[in-house]
Each structure stands twice: as C-alpha cells, then as structure tokens.
C-alpha cells in the first residue's frame, strides 16, 4: 500500500519557506515520517514492564491521586511506582496552585485530590504550592463542592460525614433489573461506581488518610458548610427531604432488606470482575476493590490481587501535559487499560500479522451486561484490551475499520482472513443491535443516556447516565457506526441506516454551529465519513458540513493543530473533495510532519474526550503521527 507509484507533481503549495509538491516526494516523506512515529508509539505502548510502557491516553491527575489514596488500604505500590506517580501529581500542578483539567481550566476536584495526595506524601501544607492549592480550593467553593468521587474519598477518609453524599435506598438493589429505577438501568460506569459505593457506605469504610479539613470552606462559626445535594427549587427541596428520610430510615430496624441488598451488590461486584481483573474502568475498579476489602477480603484474595494487577497494567509513562513540570516524564495511572480505539487506529498504520492476531483475540466472547437490551450474539470489542464484559462501540468501529483495510495493507493468509471475516460479521451484528429507536447508536449499552433517575434534580444526577442523547459523543459514535456499516456494504435502503441518517439530520440540523463550526474536527471527520458514502453531493446536510469545514481552514492550509488538520483532511477526503483546499491541507500536514524533530511529538498531543465517567478528557500523545499517517495515506490512495 505504501509503495504506490508516485504521481506526477501537478501543482505546488507555498507553505512559508518550503514549497511542497502535491503528490511528490515531500508528501510521501511526510507520510513515512508520520508512519514511523505511529509505529514508535505502538512499540512504546507495548513495553512489557509497566514502568517502561507509555500511556496512549494521559488523563488528568484524578486516577493517579485516587490510586495513591487507595494504597493506604492496599499497600500495593512499589516505592518506584509511588515516587513516579507523585512526580506526575507534583509536575501537573500549575503555578497558580491549581490542578488543571485537560482544557486548561482550574479544577476543584483535581486540586482537592492533588493537595490531599501531596499532604499524604508528607508535603508541608504550609509550603507555597500547598497554600496556593488550598486557596484555589476555597476560591472554587471548598472541597465539599467537589465531585461525587472526591467527596466519596473524603467520606472514606473521615473528612466529611457520609450524609454529604446522596443516599441510595437499599430497596433499589432488590428491584428486578427491568424496573426503571433498578441500578441495572444506570449507565455501566455509574453502576460500576454506585454499587461499590452502596457497599462501602453500608460498612461504612474508614481509611487512614491525613487531615483535609483545611480544604473545606467553613461557616463563620468555623463549621464546614454542608453541600446541597439537590438543585434549587421545589423538586430539589422535596428530593433533599427524601434523601434525609432515607438516611434517617437507615437508623430504624428494617429487617433483612439491607442485608439482602448488600449481598446482591456484592454478588454484582463479583460477577462483573472482568477477565483482565478490573471492572468497567479504573474508578469502578478502585471502588470495587475497596468494597471487597471493607467487606472482609484479605490482601491475598484472588479478586483483589487480580484487580490490583490490572491497575498496575493501566499505569505507564507519560509526558506531563501541563503544569510546572510540563514536558517531564513521569508515571501516571491511566483511566482504563490500553484503549483498543487508539491501538486499533495505530494498527491501521501498517499492522503485522501477530499484531492483528492480538487484536482479534480482544473480541468479546462472554455474554455481557450490554446484551440485556441489545439483541445480538456475543461479539464486538471492549474499550480496553483484555476486558471481557463491556462492549465499546467506538472501539469496535475502529477495529472493524482496521480489519477492513487489511487486504490492501497486510495481505494476511487465507485462514487468517476468514477469522477476520467471522469476527467482523459478529461485530457488525453487535453494532446494529446497539441502535436506539430514534436512530442513534449507544456507545457502551443501550439506554445508557436514557436513565430515568437522571431526570431527578440531584446535583450528581449526571453521573447516572452516559452523557446526553444528543451530545458530541453520541453524534460521533453514531456517525462512526454509520460509516463502518456503510464500508461493510450496508446502504441507505436499509431502514436502520436510514433511521441513523435521519437522527443525524435531526440532531445536527439545528446545531451545526456547535458540532461542526466550533466542534471537534474528529467529530466532523466521523460525520463526513458517514455522509460521504450515504448521501449524494447535493444532500443539504452534507453540503453544509462541507461549507463549514472549508471555512475552518487557515490561510496556511492547516486547520489549527496538526491533529485537527489531519482530521479535517480525512473529512475532506471522505466527502470526495480533491480540490486545492484538500491539496493544501495535505501539503501542510506533510510539511509539519517533516519539520517535527522530536520523536515523541509532544506538540502533537491534543486533549481528547476519550475517557469514562468523571473528567474524561485527556491527552493522546500518539494522535499526531497516527492521524497524520492515516490522513496522508488516504490522500495518496484517493488522489486522482
């Protein structure tokens, strides 16, 4: 695929000091450079030792901090690991004292966690960085206003009362799974968090952690202000009253109900430990391990060992993306295990047969909770490698895309090809089964965004569902599924495809500005890949997408950062555009790829929302070379 005959240079683009001949050697050289970068990242992520492997998705300091806090209970971290993780936390602190989210904004929850972890590590709370962090926490409303996860840790550490967390009535866990209020109707991440939370709160657990009351904003009388658990308004007040009633009722004798509910929650935790040892992702894993521990599991318990090993595999080296130590290398805890979405796209840049065999082995073979509402046989791919229970539609699309490109890329042996086809068939069935009645596609489970209890005015209600039904992630996921299905031969005359397209039209139509004009170009690329094969060039949505995409191009030919330009080029190619704007984008990419001298391409890292649950955004260090390689490959393959 990479040794196609060079096309004659037909035009050139002036790009500052260098002139790039379209289709000539610079493009090819840029592609080779990007491919080399992508392959290097593949190898970095594959290193056998945790301390040598690199993370392909670098989250904020949240997971790292929580692992450090939980180690008070597990005593599992090796000194080198602890030091590496602490270096990541310290290096990520901004000069202002805050810890920033992936978009560069000071974050109350992260700052609370960061301060607490450093305090636990022995940092002097009167030191300047710690005082600054404390001030930031107070400015942002105090630790009591941090997110649910942080408040849970504060409660476990005895820093705030358990009443500052929302109550879960025991009866919920005894409801049959099809009942709307049952926890099985929550999104998988929420289920993974709230089930161990219910067990822990019932215990209740207490970890030996340093005093963090300095982070709580006090009243004038010196007593910390209790947070409001519900939103303002009558409904919120009523719910707050209900919450108090539940908590009060806990003190009354209620027979065997709480015990039965706890038993069922523990059974859920047992059943949902995946093949790789973890639960849905890192936070549910941590909480599940804590729940098992507080319910009596010893440190030699196999479930605990497997879970801790999974957490260890989820760690890796990372270049600190922002903060005082930006650019330094430290050890960070990933938000989940190695992501198949990223691995799959890296493999699209020239895979080897062993790598493909590894990819095929990641297919789901066990019945999972996603099949409760999706009528498909087992198949598809999880979010992280080695997972056995949870489907990820995004990852499945990526793997299918990679596998579909094989006959040209790798030319595997016939037996291998039929195995790929069998896997693809199952995965396609799974994708189709993940369609909601309105036409959109869910990412992890059907109904993940239609949680009834999310409608209640809890301040933490957003936890219960996987985003909104019309948010960027669902738009991108739906577009990716439509593109994947269309690449497999499904056409608009299939009612499922037509329904999906109608949903896109309906959702995007009034919100083109949000999703396309100012939205992420990765989403625009996914939309273009869906609309390109499914709609005629005169289709209004397609035309508007094209126009808005064109407007985003800068004078130099790029679309901003290199990853954005790569996505934009992919989008233009998917729309069948081969005009001068496309040529200039390709030339810009190739030039940038050649200019970059740092193999790790730190400047190419971009924040991406590829995470789970709270503060999902992170940095994808392999995105630059990977997406550049994919875009330039596609450009050279389709150049007229």
């Amino acid at each position, binding site marked *: 695929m990479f040794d196609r005959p060079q096309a004659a240079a037909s035009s050139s683009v002036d790009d500052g000091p260098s002139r790039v001949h379209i289709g000539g050697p610079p493009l090819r050289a840029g592609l080779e450079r990007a491919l080399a970068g992508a392959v290097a990242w593949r190898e970095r992520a594959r290193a056998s030792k945790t301390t040598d492997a690199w993370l392909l998705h670098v989250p904020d300091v949240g997971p790292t901090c929580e692992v450090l806090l939980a180690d008070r209970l597990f005593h599992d971290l090796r000194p080198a690991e602890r030091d590496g993780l602490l270096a990541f936390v310290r290096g990520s602190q901004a000069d202002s004292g805050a810890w920033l989210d992936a978009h560069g904004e000071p974050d109350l929850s992260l700052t609370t966690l960061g301060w607490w972890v450093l305090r636990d590590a022995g940092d002097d709370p009167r030191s300047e960085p710690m005082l600054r962090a404390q001030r930031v926490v107070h400015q942002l409303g105090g630790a009591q206003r941090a997110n649910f996860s942080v408040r849970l840790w504060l409660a476990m550490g005895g820093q705030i009362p358990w009443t500052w967390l929302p109550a879960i009535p025991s009866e919920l866990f005894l409801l049959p*799974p*099809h009942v709307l209020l049952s926890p*099985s109707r929550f999104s998988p991440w929420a289920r993974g968090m709230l089930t161990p939370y219910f067990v822990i709160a019932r215990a209740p657990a207490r970890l030996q952690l340093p005093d963090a009351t300095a982070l709580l904003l006090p009243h004038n009388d010196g007593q910390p202000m209790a947070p409001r658990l519900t939103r303002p308004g009558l409904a919120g007040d009523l719910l707050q009253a209900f919450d108090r009633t539940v908590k009060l009722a806990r003190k009354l004798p209620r027979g065997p109900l709480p015990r039965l509910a706890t038993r069922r929650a523990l059974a859920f935790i047992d059943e949902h430990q995946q093949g790789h040892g973890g639960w849905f992702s890192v936070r549910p894993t941590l909480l599940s391990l804590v729940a098992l521990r507080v319910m009596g599991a010893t440190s030699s318990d196999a479930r605990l060992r497997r879970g801790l090993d999974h957490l260890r595999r989820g760690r890796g080296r990372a270049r600190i993306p922002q903060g005082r130590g930006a650019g330094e290398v430290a050890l960070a805890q990933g938000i989940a295990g190695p992501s198949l979405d990223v691995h799959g796209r890296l493999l699209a840049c020239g895979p080897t047969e062993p790598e493909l065999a590894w990819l095929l082995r990641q297919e789901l073979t066990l019945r999972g909770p996603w*099949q*409760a*509402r*999706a*009528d*498909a*046989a087992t198949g598809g791919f999880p979010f992280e490698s080695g997972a056995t229970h949870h489907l990820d539609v995004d990852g499945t699309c990526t793997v299918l895309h990679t596998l*579909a490109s094989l*006959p040209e890329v790798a030319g595997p042996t*016939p*037996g291998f*090809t*039929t195995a790929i*086809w*069998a896997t*693809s*068939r*199952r995965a396609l*069935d799974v994708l189709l*089964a993940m369609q909601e*009645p309105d036409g959109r596609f869910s990412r992890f489970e*059907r*109904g993940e965004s239609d949680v009834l209890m999310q409608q209640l005015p809890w301040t933490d209600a957003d936890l219960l569902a996987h985003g909104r039904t019309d948010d960027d992630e669902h738009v991108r996921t739906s577009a990716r599924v439509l593109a994947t299905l269309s*690449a*497999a*031969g*499904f*056409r608009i*005359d*299939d*009612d499922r495809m037509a329904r999906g397209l109608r949903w896109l039209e309906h959702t995007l139509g009034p919100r083109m500005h949000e999703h396309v004009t100012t939205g992420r170009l990765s989403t625009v690329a996914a939309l273009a890949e869906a609309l390109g*094969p499914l709609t005629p060039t005169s289709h209004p949505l397609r035309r508007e997408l094209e126009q808005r995409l064109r407007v985003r191009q800068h004078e130099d030919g790029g679309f901003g950062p290199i990853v954005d330009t790569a996505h934009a080029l992919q989008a233009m190619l998917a729309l069948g555009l081969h005009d001068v704007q496309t040529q200039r984008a390709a030339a810009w990419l190739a030039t940038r790829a050649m200019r970059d001298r740092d193999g790790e391409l730190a400047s190419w890292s971009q924040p991406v929302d590829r995470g789970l649950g709270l503060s999902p955004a992170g940095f994808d260090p392999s995105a630059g070379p990977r997406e550049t390689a994919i875009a330039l490959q596609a450009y050279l393959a389709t150049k007229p």
Partner: protein
Amino acid sequence: MSTTDPIVTTEPAARGAVTEAPLRHARYDVVIVGAGLAGCATARALALADRFARRRVLVVDRYRDVHPRFSGELIHPRGAQILDDLGLFSALHGVGGIEVGGFAVFEHADAPFVDLSYADVPRERPRGLSIHHKELVRTLRRELRATPRGSAEGIELLEGWAVADLLRHGDRIRGVVLEGKGGQRASVHADLVIAADGKGSTVRKLAGISDEGRETIGFTAGVELRGASLPRPGYAHVFLGAWGPVLAYPILRQADGTIRTRVTFDLPRELPVKGPALKQHLLRSYVPFVPAPLSAEIAAAVMAHRGPLEMAPTVNLPAPSAAMPGLVLVGDAAGCSHPITASGMTMGLRDAETLGLQAKRRADAPDGEPWLDAESLRRYRAEHDRYVPTRQALADAIYEAFRGGEDGSRAIRRALFDYWGSGGTARRRSMALLSCSERRPHVFLTEYIKTARHALETSLVPQHASMYPVGDRVRRARGAAKLARNKLGLVAAVMWAQVRPAWLTRIESR
C-alpha cells in the same frame, strides 16, 4: 432434426435488402423465437406431440452459439421430470449436469444451515438438476438437431437470425420477419409464433404487449469455482447477511470429476462501484458473509478472475398475458421474477409441457386448421396463469425477506427460519411450494398464515436480549404485521389464480 443448409428465398423485405434465408420453407406451423431452455424444450415437446409427423417447427435464435450472458442454471425436480419426459434429462446429465438434492439456507454464516431437501416433497423426484447454462443450451440445441424424425418436416434450427418484425393479418400474428447478421431479411409465415426469447423479449415488444410493472431489481454478478468446499455437497446454497443473498450451487461435473460451482452475488440496482472496484466491493461486502472455507475459495476466485465479472440484470416482470391470437409467450418472456427461488427454468419447462399437451390434443387437427388453435391457446393461458402467480409471489416475498432491508422483512426472515426449525413438516411444505410442486391454494394460504404468526411471535421474543425494550418489540411486530398485510393482495391473487374457473380465461387481441 434437420440442419439449415438449403437456401430458401422468401418474401421481399420491407427495406429492400437481400431476401434470402437458409430456410427450407416459407411457412411453418410454429415459429419459436429463442433457442434457450424454454424454446428448445417447447420445440421438443411439440415434436413429440406431432405423432403424425405432419408439422413444421422453426426455432430461431439471434446467437449462433449461446447467449453471452450467464443465466439460470438450476432446475427443480418438477422441471427435471419434464426434461426426462422430453428425453433430454439423460443428455444433460451426461454432459456434466449435476443432480441437486435441495437447498441449504444459511440465516448467517455462523448458523447451522436449514436443510430444504427435495426428497422430502412427496410424489416428486428426489433431485433437481443443475447445469452450466452455456452447456445446457449447447446440449439442448444439439439434441434438437438430433430429435428423432417424428414428423416429415421436423424441427428446423436457425441460428444467428433475430426477429425484426411480426407479420400480422388483422389482429392476428401470422409470422415473423427475420434479420440476419448482414442485414438481410426474410419473412416467415406461421400459424403460431412462440416467444421464448427471455425477459427482454423482442417479440413481446413487437406484439405490443405491455411491460407495465417491469422493474429492474438489481444485478447478479457471478463467478465460477472449481472444487469448491460447499457445506452441503450436492445442494444449492443460499447465504444471507450481506446486502443481498449470495447463492452457490454446483453447475458441472467435469470429465476428471472436478465439480464446477457457480457463485452469484445479488447487487443493488444502483451499483455502489463499477469496473475493477466491483471485485473489491464483493470481497468486502459479500464474501465475508459466507462461511469458511468456501469464503476463502470465493475470494480467491474473485481475485483471480480476469476481466469484468459476468453480470446480468435481475428483473421483476409481472406476468403479462401469455397468449394472444397467433402468439404465445413462454419462459421468462411470459413474466419473470428475482432468481432467488430458482424457479424460472422450471416455469419455462412447465410452459413447454403445457403447450406440448395442447399440441398432443390437437395432433390430428385437419389440414387447413392451425395445429394450436384459439382453444388450445386459451387452455394454455388458463393453466399458465395458475402456476406463474404463485411463483412470482413466492419469489417476491422470499427475496424481500432474505434481503431484510427493513424491520418487517427481517422479522419475516427470522420467522421463516424459526418456522423451518420447527420440524420436517414445515420444511417439506415450504419446499413443495418453492420447488413449484405444490399448487393447492389452501396450502399456500396455510403457509402464509403460519409464517405471519411466527413473524409476530419472533418479533416479540428476542433471540439474545434478556431485557429487550418493549418499544423495539412492538416496532418489529408492527413491521411484520405491515408486511404481512401488504402481501394480502398478493395472496389473494394467488388464491384466485388457483380457483378461477378456466372458462373465464379469454384470449384478447391487441
């Protein structure tokens, strides 16, 4: 029976071209246009019916050898029996035709197949016949030439001549004007013209018979494999899951024992890609839905195929009036549907058989009277109109269900497999209908009702999901009910075709 050596000068052509054709007569009892399966079988049936050896039959075809495009190759037992009755079966079997035991239908590549066996159908041959189309036509033409001389004049076969016009006398068709490759023309008078020139019939157009309702459904692309690993050897296979069904069936046993297998891909009318990219499209969008190791063999055959793939349009042509004064339509010219039920050739053979019966009834018709008179044509049409609607209704419904383009059709597809899985009786009854062996109206109605009931049941009960949303169940059931309701008209038409009194049939003139 006879070759076309003598040169006979006939009437001057309208355009004043050279008017000579290699014919022995200027007048025939019957002219059959099209020397494919239906034409050759009809000629043979007429020859066998001419027990007093008085009739002259001319068979004309525009191609000297065979039609260059691939066509039907599978014949159900009912058709195989007719071939046997016409004395053609052994010849076809002898040149490599393969007896097929039925159909193996795969709902998807990972599922066990449903065995729809001919042997289960009572009072029918246990096997059908499958043969490479070109070999089939060559053999039939060879047999036609060697037909035992039952009549004094026998059958004449004229190859390389096309029909340019029809000769008329009032409303009645009296013959054809033939045109050779060099533009020369010849007028041939006949008491009866039989159009057996396929779905794009020129004669039908010249006669002014409306093509109303004709619809190009899509295209069929085909490749040939040698020694393919069919999951059920000796059976035709249907693989579902891709955009359209993939069919695979043996077509020829070679002298060295190797079996040649035809694989066809059902493509949409608007081809997603054309030219060489079509191979890649088949590899990505069709071949993966075939179980291994056959899929790998198909992929290798597609890749190794040189030049453009063989393709033919799939056409739905609601049966036009099959007879008018002086003209009869047989085979695909008399209506065709999607080849999914592989019933086209069997229908052509039934047409030949029916005409043969009428010819036998009129074998002793006095000179000066047409061999096949108006009453014969009316009887032919009455009979033809009974079995053709069933075939078309079934092909239409099965294709829609197998395509599975919408909720309702997917529900029907699921229901069909569920129904077939319910027992041998269900499979036997379905197979009897599909193989054109069953025509009792109550059986058709019963099968329709049972499938509709299964569709509703399977829509409401998911296969894998434990908490399948009620809304999805209702949507699927509603889709199935809507489709079943839409097919009610078709069912009624089929039922009426079976019970309609024969005297209602009239031969209209145009």
